[in-house]
């Protein structure tokens, strides 16, 4: 893959170029190591490596270790719960919006476009706030649902924000398919709706998988915004709670950040794996040239916090 990428920009290297890039390598490594050294040194000066601060997080013998990791585990479960609900809802609703937008006439489309533009134009944190705090104020009661008001307020906020982004992704995915796919399906006697369902949507999901996954990562991260708004014990809130008791914010949030990175990295790898498996099976429809400006792995259409 990286071979391919470089081919665009760089010529095959000759001996001089190889020597130069070796020197560059050494210099770059030295600079990066130096930087790392300064950071570690300064942190050590501030006593940030003391066992008093790290112990509860990494030493199973520490008295608080079990409690801390119980909180973190709960946090992970809650984060994943909210994220999974929001993901499923926004993908489903987003697909419906995309299909509606693609199959409605010019006029019928206008309210949908308005909806998409407004929800895309607002910060997620504002939408989550509206979901969690404003909805109950205007009389929408979600506290009866399993999981409670805050969870569903959060899920609604995230869903409203992300469904329109997924709608755009799916729409772009359908638009990026070669025109012939739709025509072949119609010529084969499928109805418009069958064409959409059997031929276009499955392929759109495949082509847009990278974009979909990076948006799913955004959803997962955005669950943490609820900390500013209300009490829901997701991962970040649990981190707050831990450091409040132990007085080690840097260490705690470092671990929390690693957990987020690990979760999202796995999600990203999953996408790459699926993508590669499809490429091997040769199932991808369109070469990059045909996908209207949407190179695989393109940056997300939306992107929350």
């Amino acid at each position: 893959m990286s071979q391919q990428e470089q081919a665009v920009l760089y010529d095959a290297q000759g001996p001089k170029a190889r020597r130069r890039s070796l020197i560059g390598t050494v210099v770059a490594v030295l600079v990066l190591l130096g930087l790392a050294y300064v950071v570690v040194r300064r942190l050590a000066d501030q006593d940030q490596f003391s066992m008093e601060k790290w112990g509860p997080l990494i030493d199973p013998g520490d008295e608080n270790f079990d409690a801390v990791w119980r909180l973190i585990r709960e946090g992970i479960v809650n984060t994943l719960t909210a994220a999974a609900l929001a993901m499923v809802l926004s993908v489903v609703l987003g697909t419906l919006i995309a299909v509606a937008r693609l199959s409605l006439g010019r006029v019928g489309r206008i309210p949908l476009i308005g909806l998409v533009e407004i929800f895309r134009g607002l910060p997620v944190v504002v939408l989550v706030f509206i979901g969690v705090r404003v909805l109950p104020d205007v009389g929408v009661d979600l506290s009866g649902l399993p999981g409670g008001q805050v969870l569903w307020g959060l899920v609604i906020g995230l869903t409203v924000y992300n469904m329109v982004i997924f709608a755009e992704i799916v729409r772009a995915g359908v638009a990026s398919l070669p025109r012939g796919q739709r025509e072949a399906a119609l010529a084969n006697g499928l109805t418009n709706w069958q064409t959409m369902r059997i031929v276009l949507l499955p392929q759109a999901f495949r082509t847009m998988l990278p974009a979909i996954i990076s948006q799913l990562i955004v959803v997962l991260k955005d669950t943490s915004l609820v900390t500013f708004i209300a009490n829901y014990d997701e991962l970040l809130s649990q981190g707050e709670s831990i450091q409040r008791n132990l007085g080690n914010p840097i260490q705690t949030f470092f671990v929390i950040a690693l957990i987020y990175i690990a979760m999202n990295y796995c999600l990203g790898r999953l996408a790459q794996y699926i993508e590669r498996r499809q490429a091997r099976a040769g199932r991808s429809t369109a070469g990059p040239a045909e996908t209207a400006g949407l190179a695989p792995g393109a940056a997300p259409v939306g992107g929350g916090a």
Partner: protein
Amino acid sequence: MTSRPNGEPLVRLSGVNKWFGELHVLQDIDLSIDRGEVVVVIGPSGSGKSTLCRAINRLEPIDKGEITIDGGRLPEEGKELARLRADVGMVFQSFNLFAHKTVLENVALGPVKVRKKPKAEAEGRARELLERVGVASQADKYPAQLSGGQQQRVAIARALAMEPKVMLFDEPTSALDPEMINEVLDVMVGLAKDGMTMVVVTHEMGFARRAANRVVFMDGGRIVETAEPETFFTSPRSDRAKDFLSKILTH
């Protein structure tokens, strides 16, 4: 395949006109195609061949005139249109196999979803058709794993699976490597011999000579000349046809 034994043409275009914005791409087209007839459409790029072909199953709606198939007017939309399209097979220049389905699924999809045949029966029939076009061994692969020639033969099998009354081919071999062109043309010649009604847009004179009943020469959105293949290639009447033939024949 010919159900009604009357003398009426299977496909009839009368006074067909179509515009793309300002561009008048089909101008007063009159054309009748009888059962079992093979018509080759030839002409320079942009002359409207593809549009003509696509108008016959209404992938392009027309602006004026009438197209009838088997005596019935082309429906404008909805279920009837889908049903009609099922009766008209179409093979595209770029194959357009469904990339996310295997070869077998590609062929069986229409019969199952449109003709509502049981899956097993449809797949059995699909295997027969793949056998007939010579790609039976590839049934479980995905389209991208096949060569162009193989893909195009699958596309033909997919169209045949619907048991169409007429088949439309839009430059079926022009996206193929030279070595693969013949394997596709052979299948098409076979179809013609079996009595299939065919409209074929192509520049392959070999095919026209071997299989066509008639050659239709288009230029600038009009049918300029209609003739027997041999006559057309050896002594075209119109100047435009002469000019065109001189361009594609010299090299």
